[in-house]
Every structure is written in structure tokens, then in C-alpha cells.
């Protein structure tokens, strides 16, 4: 298994960060893996981490009474999973379940929040990257709202 800083240096999400900054971030990170079918986090639980998926696929789900677990979206290699660590109340809004075996880098939320408070420049770098991801996901979600494949008569 390669060292965390080396893996982070290659991640698209951290593109453009200086090596020192990556070291700083790596200080809050550790490599993790999940077997297929494992619940990574549950809705309502304390959001302690966010994950950078290196390999595998994760389903974001929510439980709907009488429908069971409804898959909202899948997250794949290179994607970031979880942003509830950014702002209070630091609680997950959805369930995350490993669809396949998953290898990821987990970032301790409290640790990172501390480092960002001490170093606003780091905070800006992280938050702007998350903002980009959020904007992208929002656009894609809006595209799904349009139901472009639906019948013309339904609109």
C-alpha cells in the first residue's frame, strides 16, 4: 500500500495543491477499505469523515417506508464522498453502502476543520474544491429533475 501523501498527490480532487499543503491534509488522512455490501455511514449519524474513493463504487441511499432503500446516486473512483463534515450539525443526510469492494482515503473531519481554522488559505483551497464538486453534482441532479427521457406527454 502506497503512502497517503503519494496517493493524494495523484488525486484529481487535489489537483493544483502544493506538496506542503498535501502533507498538511495527509496528516488527517488514512487509507481504508470496505468489503462489498458494508454500510459506510448511516443517515443521522455523526459525520466524522469524508472519503476520497480510489477504487470501487458506493451507493448513496435513503430509506423510504414501504419502498425500502432507494438509491439516489452512485459514487465512483476519483469522486469525493461526504460533505456533511464541513458545517454543523455534522450529521450524515444519506446512507452510503459499498456496492463493490472499496478502497478509499478517509479524512478526519475534526482534524481538518482544526487545520483550516488555523490556516485559512488551506480552508479556502478545500472549500473551493468542495464547492466545485457540489456545483457539479447540483447541475447533474437538476438534469435528472428535467426527466429528459420521459414521455413528452408527461410534461
Amino acid at each position, binding site marked *: 500500500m502506497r503512502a497517503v501523501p503519494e496517493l493524494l498527490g495523484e488525486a484529481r480532487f487535489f489537483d493544483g495543491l502544493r506538496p506542503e499543503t498535501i502533507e498538511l491534509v495527509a496528516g488527517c488522512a488514512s487509507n481504508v477499505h470496505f468489503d462489498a455490501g458494508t454500510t459506510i455511514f448511516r443517515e443521522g449519524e455523526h459525520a466524522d469523515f469524508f472519503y476520497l474513493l480510489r477504487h470501487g463504487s458506493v451507493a448513496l441511499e435513503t430509506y423510504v417506508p414501504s419502498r425500502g432503500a432507494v438509491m439516489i446516486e452512485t459514487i465512483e473512483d476519483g469522486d469525493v464522498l461526504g460533505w456533511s463534515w464541513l458545517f454543523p450539525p455534522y450529521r450524515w443526510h444519506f446512507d452510503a453502502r459499498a456496492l463493490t469492494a472499496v478502497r478509499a482515503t478517509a479524512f478526519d473531519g475534526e482534524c481538518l476543520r482544526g487545520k483550516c481554522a488555523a490556516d485559512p488559505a488551506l480552508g479556502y483551497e478545500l472549500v473551493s474544491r468542495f464547492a466545485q464538486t457540489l456545483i457539479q453534482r447540483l447541475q447533474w441532479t437538476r438534469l435528472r429533475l428535467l426527466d429528459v427521457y420521459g414521455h*413528452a*406527454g408527461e*410534461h
Partner: protein
Amino acid sequence: MPLTESETAVLEPDALEALVSALRARGYRVLGPMLRDGAIVYDDLSSAADLPIGWTDVQQPGRYRVERREDAARFGYAVGPHSWKRFLLPARLRVWRARRDGDGFEIDGEEAESAPLAFVGVRGCEISAIAIQDRVLLGGRHVDADYAARRDGAFVVAVDCFEPADTCFCVSMGGGPGITAGHDLALSEILDGEHRFLARAGSQRGAELLRALPTRRAATDDVAAAAAAVEAAAGRMTRTVEAGDLRDLLARNLEHPRWEQVAQRCLTCGNCTMVCPTCFCTNVEDVSDLTGMEVERVRIWESCFAVDHSFLHGGSVRQSGRSRYRQWLTHKFGTWHDQFDSSGCVGCGRCIAWCPVGIDVTEELAAIRESDGARG
């Protein structure tokens, strides 16, 4: 006396009867202008007496009236609501018939006998219009066989224009008022002095027909009088269009505020497209009888102003009146160049006269040009 194609001759007004009879004798269905329902329309001409003798038209935006002339001119008007497309591209045409045959169907190849057409009284703008429709329906990869059949062998007796309407702008669009090509016979009506017609043959069969009519040799003053009348007509155009760069002008002004302004007036009634001699849009409809055993494919005139014209996936691409007016004007004067290598307009002015609210295309174009680049 022997005539060559380029020679001219002079006819007396009464000789037009012989012209009509001669065409009939040669098996043509003769079509020409006549006064009916307060307008000069095109229909079957049984004799030269049917012509609108001594009538003229007075046209303004949204206004068309016929008025009596003080002379007995046969062609003393400009153009009416009809154009020759009503015979070349009929408003309703059965394309084929079919009937159910077991699991399948059989299409009936109909062989119908029909007389070739002879058009009497074709204006310069109308010759241009026919040429434009030729390019659309005959000039592409696929040829419209029905149009080709009607067009092939259609005899054209054209007439110089000496009485343009206020709505005319053929000089700007390059198709009149005189006849220069596309005719079998061209007539110039001369009222100056003795009422007579200068006739010019434009084809072999035109020359052959002229030879069969009672004529006398044309003198220099006949030719001069005819030319003078055409020149005077050209000088009386009250409307103009700067036509040279319309394709680019319109292409870069698709969001001009003028479109919204004209949309406030336009009823999207489609009159302009019905009277326009070059508009060619049609609907293809499949209709069946009550038993569902016999069906027909029918081609009928359609207008781009109809909301359903651009129907796609549960809605129309062009829903607003603004977009439909823009489609018509930009197609006629702009994208027609891209599609068919010429302008779609011949300056006949029909759309101006027959628009119920009097929208004037020359004014619309000028307004866009004046604030070229404005965005609404």
C-alpha cells in the same frame, strides 16, 4: 411571313382571341386573369373576353381594390391574390392511392390524362417566382414528379408590366417589370397612340404560335413605346429593398427587438404565405375512408405560421408568433440563399397588400437594417 425567334410582331387587341383559340387548338388548358369577386384572379380562360378588360388594381398595405380604367387595357393591373403556383403546385393534390390487400397493401399507380397548361398574363416577377420554385422542387437531389410533369410543357405567355402597384418592389429584387427570359411569348401592351401589343417569341413553339396569329411587322416606334412603358413602370416603384446582403443581415439579427414589435401586430393568419408565389411548404397527409380499406396520400398547402408546422415531441419548436414571423421573413430573404442559392422574394408585394394588418416586409427589413445588431 416567316419569323425567327428573336423577331417581334405587333398584334391588335382582338387578336388575343386568336391567341387563346390557337392555344386551345394545340390541346392546352388555357389559364389567365379575370375579374371575379372583386379581384383579378387566375382561372380557366375560355376566351379573351374573360380578361379583365379596362380594370386595374389599387394596392396598399392591407388593402386591395379593383377600379375601372379609362381605357380598354387587357393587362392594366399588377398582380392579384393568385399566383401560378395554384396550378403548378396545387393547393390539394392526391399523390397516390392505396388499398388494403391481405396483410399488406397495394399502391395504385394512377395514369391520368391531363392537358398541358398554358399561362396567359405572366408577370416578370412571376417568371422569377416560377424559376425559384423550379430550383426548390426540381433542382435538388429529389425531383417532385408532379411539379415536373406540370411544368414540363407549360406554355408561358408573359406580359410586361406597365401599371405597377404601390406595393411592388420587383426592381429591388431583380425580377421585373419587363420580361427578359423564361417565356414562350412575351407581350407588351401599348396604350400610347393606337392600342396594340408588341409580341416577342422566346422559344421555338412561341415563334410557331406567333406565326399562326394575325400580326403585322413591328416598327421602331412600337419597340420604343414598349420599352418606354417598362422603363416608366420601373421608375414608379415606391418601395425598395437593399437586397445585396440580406442573408448576412438577417443571420446576425435573430434576436433583434423588431421581431417582438412585428409580433404584436402579426395575426399569424398565414395570408402572406398563401398569396406568396414562391412559398412552397406543404403538409403530407394520409387519409382513409371509413372502412380503413382505401387510403390516399394527399399533399396540401401549409404555412409556417401554423403552430403545428414545427410540431415535435408533444410541442412545437416555434410556439410564439414572434418566432414564426421571424422564420418566415428570415427564410424568404435570408436562409433561402443558403438552401436554394437565391432569394425567395421577387418583390411582387402581394404579402403587403393581403396582410390584414398591413405589415410591410420592406419596412420590416429597413427597420432591422437601421438598428443592425440591436438585441431585444
